[in-house]
């Protein structure tokens, strides 16, 4: 069996490329370490000296202000130097290849590359070509994976529900185009959540999604019944044009999370959303701002989770 490209010869995390294929032990290590970093982020001085003298390069071949910012904050709180490159607007537009870009940055003494790319697999390609002391963190590649978002979702669920063993988790919406959903589902399965459901119209669920170990629902009412955790996915506007959906209004009627639909879940259910959210399309404002919503804590936990990932890979 070929070695997992994320792990070094000692089985330690060298790169974070995907939650899929990571052993439970490493997922738990990341979540436990993140918990200690949450303590750091609540202090007056929100910085520790762990990555002092290291350089973290944010390589965003695809725009994403929020993810880039949270990686930047995480790296700065570890005392690393952060260099942000908006590659979409620079070298590649002049024709430089992906690996040439990385080789150049490597010559500038990079230690960690945080990579966001529209093509699935781009971070894997980079990880195969970097030097032994360099580390790659996938910040979202195409439709494939967004492991730090998946990890912060797992962290949030564990924070509020303590244990995965009795949980019913419902993931609602555009699973087909969602790297967030894929990463989360793999993580939940690895950590032993007994029931993961995906809810959405046929056109937005990938064919054969059951193979990931989930139950499929097309009806919100049925799918939400008894859920402990509801994860709403963003409906990307561009999906409207591709004949996948009739209209935003009709989508909201059937799959938008309203207080009435939320009432079908458990009384203490939590509502999550990876952001940015479209109010009135996949989620009603009263729910997004309501007592079940943990959408803003997700953002805060996301920084601690990214600090944990960077400090673990950079030490291996």
């Amino acid at each position: 069996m070929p070695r997992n490209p994320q792990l070094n010869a000692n089985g330690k995390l060298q790169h974070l490329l995907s939650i899929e294929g990571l052993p439970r032990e490493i997922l738990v290590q990341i979540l436990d370490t993140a918990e200690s970093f949450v303590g750091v982020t609540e202090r007056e001085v929100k910085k520790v000296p762990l990555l002092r003298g290291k350089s973290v390069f944010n390589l965003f071949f695809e725009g994403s202000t929020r993810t880039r910012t949270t990686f930047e904050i995480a790296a700065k709180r570890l005392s690393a130097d952060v260099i942000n490159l908006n590659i979409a607007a620079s070298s590649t537009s002049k024709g430089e290849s992906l690996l040439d870009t990385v080789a150049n940055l490597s010559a500038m003494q990079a230690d960690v590359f945080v990579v966001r790319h529209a093509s699935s697999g781009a971070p894997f390609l980079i990880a195969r070509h970097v030097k032994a002391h360099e580390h790659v963190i996938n910040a979202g590649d195409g439709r494939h994976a967004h492991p730090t978002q998946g990890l912060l979702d797992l962290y949030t669920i564990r924070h509020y529900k303590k244990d995965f063993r009795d949980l019913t988790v419902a993931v609602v919406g555009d699973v087909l185009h969602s790297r967030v959903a894929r990463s989360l589902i793999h993580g939940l399965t690895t950590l032993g959540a007994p029931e993961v459901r995906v809810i959405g119209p046929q056109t937005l669920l990938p064919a054969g999604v059951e193979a990931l170990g989930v139950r499929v629902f097309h009806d919100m009412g049925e799918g939400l019944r008894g859920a402990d955790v509801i994860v709403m996915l963003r409906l990307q506007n561009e999906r409207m044009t591709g004949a996948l959906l009739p209209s935003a209004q009709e989508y909201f009627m059937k799959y938008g999370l309203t207080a009435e639909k939320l009432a079908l879940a458990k009384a203490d259910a939590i509502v999550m959303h990876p952001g940015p959210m479209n109010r009135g399309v996949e989620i009603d404002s009263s729910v997004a701002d309501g007592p079940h919503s943990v959408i803003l804590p997700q953002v805060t936990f996301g920084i601690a989770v990214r600090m944990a990932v960077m400090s673990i890979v950079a030490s291996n």
Partner: protein
Amino acid sequence: MSALPDAEALLPPLAAALRASVTPATVMVGVFTGGAWLAERLHAMLGLAEPLGLMDIAFYRDDYHKQGLKHDPKRTRIPFAIEGKDVLLVDDVLYTGRTVRAAMNELFDYGRPRSIALAVLVDRGGRQLPICAQHCGARVEVPAGMRLRLKRAADGRLALELEDAA
């Protein structure tokens, strides 16, 4: 090599020595894991007003680049303002002094204490930094290559143990 001292027997005289140094601004911070167990006991014996602080120095270690991050760092909890306090820093074994340095660095990220004093159960020598303990239960000789650790039994009793460092 002499026999290891009985940890439980070292506690009352150490607490008595600490009591003499307590001021109205005294707070106690124990370093995970052994130092936290010891601090829990000493804190109760001294009856300090402020709750006990607990600290994991994993994010401040100077050997991170060699050793990596330890597997399960605990969460540091300092449930009081450090500013202006007389901090009694408690650890189980004083050896190279590197843990104490890291702990002091971390403490300063919570505020500026008026003073820091170090209390340890045992001092095994071998310092690599200019650090000393103001309060020490006992001095012991430990062969290089051996690790001296505090253990806590199910009934809460503390005991010193030697093990191979490798």
